[in-house]
């Protein structure tokens, strides 16, 4: 199909909201995973749900691939365009339609930024719990498509657990509403099912989200250790003490070095690894739990323990953690972030084997991870200008994912499969299971226009390799998990 064949689509939008010029194509050629790019034939900027639906229906009728995109902060290439298709940029559907403090819900359009939901709910003493590190930029539609998590999903779960209902346009242009405003539901949980579909079954137009009471107090502790295994053991000890912190994060020496260089976060000097633990809840419960936590940590041979005395110190601790991947740009021109999951008991062994693999293949790696739920985030560093360097890094990344599968885990905890992990998808799921996923996709999106080429290993998806940080990362606006 030639570019002129998009004429019918162009007629549905004003000229300034249907772009086919190189500048627009270039601006949308990748998401947060810059190692893969493809330029779309065009980009549409709908301002209403009806316009989204019109675009999808036109594309369905003309077999044109569609990639829905929020802010493009995804890290698996899930919003990378298809070169034969268009991008539907959803940022202009950014209205918060309703906040209901009685039912503790917010109904929002898909292009609303994650943090804006909490800001709207705050006057009612409520907030939206999922907190991906890009929450100041990423959209609810993207959170739903990739079932986003965040540092606090250890306690509160992922986006699916906080999405009660949605209006969705399926791949054939059918518009339907699923779920309801209640916490409970009669019949299969289709809202939960569509969360994390990676934009391959349809596009969420708006959603009703569950809000929680704001935690009354936080107690944030930064603990230094001489080696990373000790930090991992501390996580086990905290869980064994029946504590359920809001977050538990570990960073290794290289990650600390990067964060320190970038944001001068003031982490304990000479620590080989740090553990961040955050308790949150009512004042009386946190007061009780912090005593238990102090006792547990004292028994884990820490080299340093620092407790945030106020909000500023708490934010400083988190700033170091949240900046670490973009800070890694100071250590390496390019990097790949993986997010495989291993059973918690395997964390220590997984880290040792990753280090061993790193030595063998000569590709350096830094490690940050959501320790409470076994979600690894190895940061694989390379220089994309050196021939073969990307391939070596990519092979290493896939080897880590295979390690996660071998240990009984998952290839992705929160970033999704996207374009990046589809090569190992079939190693996690057997043939009948993948066949069923294909059958479901065929029912929902008969022409496979929605995010064609993603997730499934046998799908075609033209892409080029490139390098460099996302412009927003360079500006320090967004961070990776």
């Amino acid at each position: 199909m030639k570019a002129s064949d998009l004429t019918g689509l162009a007629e549905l939008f004003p000229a300034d909201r249907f772009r086919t010029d190189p500048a627009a194509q270039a601006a949308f050629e990748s998401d947060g995973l810059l190692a893969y790019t493809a330029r779309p034939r065009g980009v549409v900027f709908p301002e209403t749900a009806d316009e989204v639906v019109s675009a999808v229906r036109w594309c369905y009728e003309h077999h044109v691939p569609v990639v829905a995109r929020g802010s493009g902060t995804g890290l698996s290439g899930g919003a990378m365009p298809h070169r034969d298709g268009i991008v539907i940029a959803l940022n202009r559907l950014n209205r918060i339609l309703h906040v209901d403090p009685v039912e503790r819900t917010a109904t929002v359009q898909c292009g609303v930024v994650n943090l804006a939901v909490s800001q709207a709910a705050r006057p009612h003493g409520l907030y939206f719990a999922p907190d991906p590190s890009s929450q100041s930029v990423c959209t609810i539609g993207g959170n739903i498509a990739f079932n986003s998590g965040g540092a606090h999903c250890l306690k509160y779960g992922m986006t699916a657990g906080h999405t009660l209902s949605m209006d969705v346009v399926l791949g054939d242009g059918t518009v339907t509403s699923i779920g309801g405003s209640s916490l409970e539901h009669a019949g299969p949980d289709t809202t939960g099912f569509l969360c994390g579909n990676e934009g391959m079954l349809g596009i969420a137009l708006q959603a009703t989200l569950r809000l929680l009471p704001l935690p009354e107090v936080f107690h944030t502790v930064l603990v230094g250790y001489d080696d990373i295994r000790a930090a991992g053991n501390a996580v086990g000890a905290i869980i064994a003490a029946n504590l359920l912190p809001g977050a538990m994060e570990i960073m290794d020496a290289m990650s600390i070095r990067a964060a320190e260089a970038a944001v001068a976060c003031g982490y304990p000097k000479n620590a080989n690894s740090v553990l961040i633990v955050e308790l949150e809840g009512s004042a009386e419960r946190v007061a009780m739990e912090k005593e238990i936590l102090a006792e547990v940590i004292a028994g884990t041979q820490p080299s340093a323990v620092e407790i945030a005395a106020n909000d500023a110190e708490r934010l400083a601790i988190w700033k170091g953690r949240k900046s670490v991947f973009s800070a890694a740009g100071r250590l390496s021109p390019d990097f790949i972030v993986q997010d495989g999951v291993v059973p918690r008991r395997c964390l220590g062994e997984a880290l040792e084997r990753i280090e061993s693999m790193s030595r063998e293949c000569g590709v350096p790696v830094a490690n940050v991870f959501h320790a409470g739920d076994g979600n690894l985030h190895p940061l694989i560093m390379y220089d994309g200008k050196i021939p073969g360097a990307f391939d070596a890094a990519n092979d290493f990344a896939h080897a880590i994912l295979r390690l996660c599968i071998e240990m009984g885990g998952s290839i992705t905890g929160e970033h999704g499969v996207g374009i990046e992990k589809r090569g190992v998808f079939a190693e996690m799921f057997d043939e009948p299971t993948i066949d069923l996923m294909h059958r479901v996709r065929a029912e929902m999106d008969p022409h496979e226009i929605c995010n064609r080429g993603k997730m499934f290993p046998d799908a075609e998806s033209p892409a080029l390799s490139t390098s460099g940080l996302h412009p927003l990362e360079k500006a320090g606006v967004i961070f990776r998990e």
Partner: protein
Amino acid sequence: MTPASAVPDVEAPESLRHWTDLIRDWKASSSSTHLIPVGGCSKPGLSRLNSAESAASEPVSTQRYSTRNLSGILQYDPSEFTISVASGTPLEEIMAALSENGQTLPFDPPRAPLGATIGGCVASGWSGPGRWRYGGLRDFILAASFLDGLGNEVHTGAPVVKNAAGFDFPKLMVGSLGRLGVLTRLTFKVFPQSVEPNTWVVRCGDLASATLHMQTLTRLPVELDAIELCQPGMTDLHDWSIVLRVPGPEAVAESIMDRVQRNVGEAEVRRLSEDHAEKSWSKLLHVEGEVSVRIPMTPRQIETVVQTFPSELTELGWRMHFGLAGNVLFVTGAGDLQILNSWLIEHGLAGLLLNAGDASTHGTQIGMWRHDEVVVRVAKAIDPHRCFAPLLFGEPLHTKRLEA
């Protein structure tokens, strides 16, 4: 409470292989009989033929088979806080194993003493009072293996506490009522048991005060494991009452309840004895009755529900309580369901029949079930030959084309 030994005699394939053969043979047989997998039949209303189907021009029937022979704990490492079990495993067995290690499924799976299985629990989609604080089945299920309508066993999700790979079939199976496949293996996240929980009742007088107080309490930044609203006669003879389960230790719970008291004004707040608390929670958790119905709703609908509830049923002794701070209504009584069904339709509410009573001709789904296009399409993909009994919905509201 009816003991587990009273489970009706439903044929149970001996092994996964037998289940596979059953389904593969099924598609070659008459399409007028649908298969409904069941667990321990502790919620017999959920495996009934839907009324519209039984009245169809080509009558259809259903045949139930139990998964009780697919039983046993497959993997449990307490330090990992996950458990994998065969779908026909009795809840009591799972909860006992977890309890030995100070752990639990914190959403309070109902009807364990009645022989409920974990697979039946998932298929019912029914989470108990603990769902309020901790989340429900949808939040704790991590992986699900099931037999599709072709007899293939598929393995979805992953047995770790965090996973985003592949379509989320485990969540789809929550509330699937055995209509989307036969669950074979399930993995859950588990939590530490709540420390020394105790039970308090806020006597609110009338309904208006009760709903107002409940709205206040649900926005307090304090940990309440459970919050249920009961009509007079359930936990208190004369008053609408809010029943709270507050986790300990004692000093923390007392402090939280001081705050509760300050926020409910003149309403009396009293702690229940252990015996009284146990009886109350048993009633609120298992919802037993000759007829019992679970009806998802929203807190804003409470007053309308109470004001419009058919007086004929009230006079016949039907009772109600609102679970999860008004997110679900439970109704129990005896006799025919027609009046309740009409009332649900009038108010646009969907009901699930947990117990149907001997005389009822109603099916599992009563009231107004809004069309769910996603279920319809996914069911076609999972079960192309319609081996399993279908879910029934109202007329589609979706449109292929939006009107100008």
